[in-house]
């Protein structure tokens, strides 16, 4: 509807995770336009309007009312807040020293509260410092380092998130982003160290090899779905594991394995095939994030402006109606999965062509495929929403690293937070009940993707 990328220049405003206030401030600008890309035309218009018939209240009153109504932004912020509260509980119950103060909480409640506050606030402060900005940092590099880390972690998640979101819009659930990224990372890395090519060409060839690998791994469930009606959820899960075993096999083959090492690691990718760093050699952020923004723009255009995007959304909304209208559902399913695979493939490629790793290892792509599912859901399966969600997840990851090394809080807490955020997002009715939100546009909040097997 509206211009889908009014804020592409400022992705790094996102996100604050320290407290609700800073979060709502940081997200207020970017998230709202993301909602505008919805298809329902009067969506944002009605959201700003109070009930007709009543006497018109003041602007401030309207703003507060809408702030507390169950809209996308409020639910997202409250979901993050709720997740952090649960995370805080986990931090407290897993700390024996703090837990000990609770044994005499009736006698001296301040002890327990102080101890809890100290451990939780220190953990979350480190999360913030690692992700956004460290006030104690001195110098250009140190000040930009958290943002650089956040963007580095966010880049592949944008791709896998877009992959899952695109498939969702076409009515398919792509759990296979992990496998697609795995096949892609193999091809990208092999192209990266096996082909002797000049710098720019080499990088392009490696990226294309990765994208094609992902596309192939997306094509298989797509064609099986279209031709045999085989459910893509099952097939993509199975292909994930096939890809993982293939990766662990190919790493130790002659010509792939690093000849100087006995463990499972491949030769390093040539420097001519690596994505350039954006902010000097000391900061890890690389051109992958620019590619990610470009991909977001392209997918937004594809979905909202192109014929294929229209057909894709039509098939996703109602395959029978789409078929009646003359759209080939089989062709669309295959194309959706190929595109989704390609996106996940690019995400996987940036893992080995960027700065995260330079060689294949069994865990080279970490969890980007599964995180992509969460990112897509958090981003409400809209391209620009996915970008913001990926930035939030990248920030959590970057902050989690600092939290682990400075506060000794395991990085796994980040996984818990991410999963909880998405659970609360997926069940807006629960958030609504907990915070007694007014039911505005409640129907639109329902993430109804249910199709069954």
């Amino acid at each position, binding site marked *: 509807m509206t211009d889908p990328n009014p804020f592409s220049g400022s992705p790094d405003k996102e996100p604050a995770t320290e407290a609700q206030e800073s979060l709502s401030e940081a997200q207020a600008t970017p998230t709202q336009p993301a909602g505008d890309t919805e298809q329902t035309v009067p969506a944002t218009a009605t959201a700003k309007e109070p009930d007709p018939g009543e006497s018109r209240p003041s602007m401030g009153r309207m703003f507060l009312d809408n702030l507390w109504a169950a809209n996308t932004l409020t639910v997202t912020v409250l979901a993050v807040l709720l997740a952090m509260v649960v995370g805080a509980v986990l931090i407290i119950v897993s700390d024996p020293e703090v837990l000990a103060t609770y044994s005499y909480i009736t006698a001296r409640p301040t002890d327990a509260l102080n101890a809890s506050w100290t451990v939780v606030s220190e953990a979350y402060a480190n999360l913030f410092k690692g992700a956004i900005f460290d006030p104690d940092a001195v110098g250009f590099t140190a000040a930009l380092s958290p943002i650089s880390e956040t963007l580095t972690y966010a880049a592949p998640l944008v791709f896998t998130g877009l992959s899952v979101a695109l498939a969702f819009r076409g009515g398919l659930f792509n759990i296979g982003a992990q496998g697609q990224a795995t096949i892609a990372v193999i091809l990208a890395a092999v192209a990266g160290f096996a082909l002797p090519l000049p710098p720019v060409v080499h990088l392009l060839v490696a990226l294309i090899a990765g994208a094609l690998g992902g596309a192939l791994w997306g094509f298989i469930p797509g064609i099986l779905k279209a031709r*045999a*009606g085989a*459910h893509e959820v099952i097939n993509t899960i199975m292909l994930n594991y*096939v890809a993982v075993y293939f990766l662990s096999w190919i790493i130790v083959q002659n010509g792939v394995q690093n000849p100087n090492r006995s463990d499972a690691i491949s030769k390093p990718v040539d420097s001519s095939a690596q994505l350039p760093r954006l902010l000097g050699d000391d900061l890890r952020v690389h051109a992958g994030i620019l590619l990610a923004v470009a991909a977001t723009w392209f997918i937004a255009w594809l979905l909202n402006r192109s014929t294929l995007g229209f057909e894709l959304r039509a098939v996703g909304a109602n395959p029978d109606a789409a078929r009646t209208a003359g759209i080939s559902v089989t062709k669309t399913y295959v194309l959706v999965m190929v595109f989704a695979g390609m996106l996940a493939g690019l995400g996987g490629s940036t893992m080995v062509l960027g700065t995260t790793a330079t060689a294949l290892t069994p865990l080279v792509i970490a969890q980007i495929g599964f995180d992509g599912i*969460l990112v897509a859901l958090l981003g409400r399966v809209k391209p620009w929403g996915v970008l913001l969600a990926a930035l939030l997840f990248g920030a959590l990851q970057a902050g989690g690293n600092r939290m682990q090394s400075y506060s000794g809080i395991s990085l796994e807490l980040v996984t818990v937070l991410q999963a*909880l955020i998405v659970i609360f997002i997926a069940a807006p009715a629960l958030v609504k009940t907990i915070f007694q939100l007014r039911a505005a546009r409640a129907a639109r909040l329902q993430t109804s993707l249910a*199709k*069954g*097997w």
Partner: protein
Amino acid sequence: MSTTAVPEVAVTAVDEGFWTRNRKIGAVLLALGVLAAVLFGALATDQHARFTLSETEGGAALEINGTVGAILFGLITAAAGGALLAGVPKRWFTLLLGAGLVAFVLSFLCWQVSAAPEGRNFMPLVNVVRGTFILALPLIFGALAGVLCERSGVVNVAIEGQLLMGAFSGALFGSMSGSVWVGLVAAAIGGAFISFLLAVFSIRYLVDQVVMGIVLNLLAVGITGFLYERLMQTDAAKYNSAPRFGNWEIPLLSDIPLLGPALFRGNIFLYLGLLLVLVIHLALFRTRWGLRTRSVGEHPTAADTLGVKVLRLRYRNVILAGLVAGVGGASYTLALYSFTKNMIGGKGFIALAALIFGRWSPTGALLAALFFGFADQLATYLGAIGSSIPSQFLAMLPYLATILAVAGLVGKVRAPAADGKPYIKG
């Protein structure tokens, strides 16, 4: 499966002409048989392939010349395929397909065992059978959890998380109390905790069940990993040294050759798993609860009209599933290993595959789990005899088999009709 199939393509053609599904499978089997006879026969050596009925090289054994065995079993596969191709009555289909596949595996084994280096060219069947069951155990529990859930219409992708949570809480509370039984109960409750979340969010809040399952898996990985690092790694003696169930020998039965030592000298989980298959099978197909469960999974509106409390039944079944999967997780931490991060490592998804491969029935799930367990065990065995087949490709087998099954190449799989669809009354 067919709920979201693309009707542009006829999934079940009534009149297929000469190339019926059975004939196609027969042709594939025939090709496999010829391939086995030629390729495995050529690669096998003249050494004897010994299949000993014990845990070691000695004792009674079935022996066959490697080349002869590989060719013979390959020809049996080809014959079974040929019979299917010729168009035998349908009731023979399962038998012939089964015989053909077993003979194919035997042909393969004759090649592998006879080609193994001197001193290692034997296969101890007791170990293989026992290993198959041990590796299949979490799959059996997981797949049964899937049966309970999905037969009542709730997709359970969270099996992995339920197993993991069961394993974790079994280890944690078993260690803290020092009692295996407390650990067992805690494990069941841990699994039920994850499935309780699945139930609440998918039934009450109508969240997409597959999405919820995936997210719950991540949540379980996160919570157990977090607490593992915070508690178990810092003080393993207190939090991660659960007592273990010993092996119970069943009198009389344990004296049966081959099966006795392999099956009837196991731990409580082995017996519990096999018993649960039987109990759930009987309950599902012979009791009122089973009839109601199946009807809710197929057509909840009709069941509701007849007075079945659809949502209550779904809640109950999903939580029961969690209890079963939790015990399955404990079969790791209360019998074999101490807890480590993400120790289930994808077994929950193989259990899901076993559920689908076994066509949503308890006995089918058992057979599928055993097949996957055997593939796993075979990979270990072939690694031990220094086989040229990379173990990674054998490890892919369950996943590839499931893809073939779902694509309709090995028979038609059909999920309960209402599986994954939330029920909204009225």
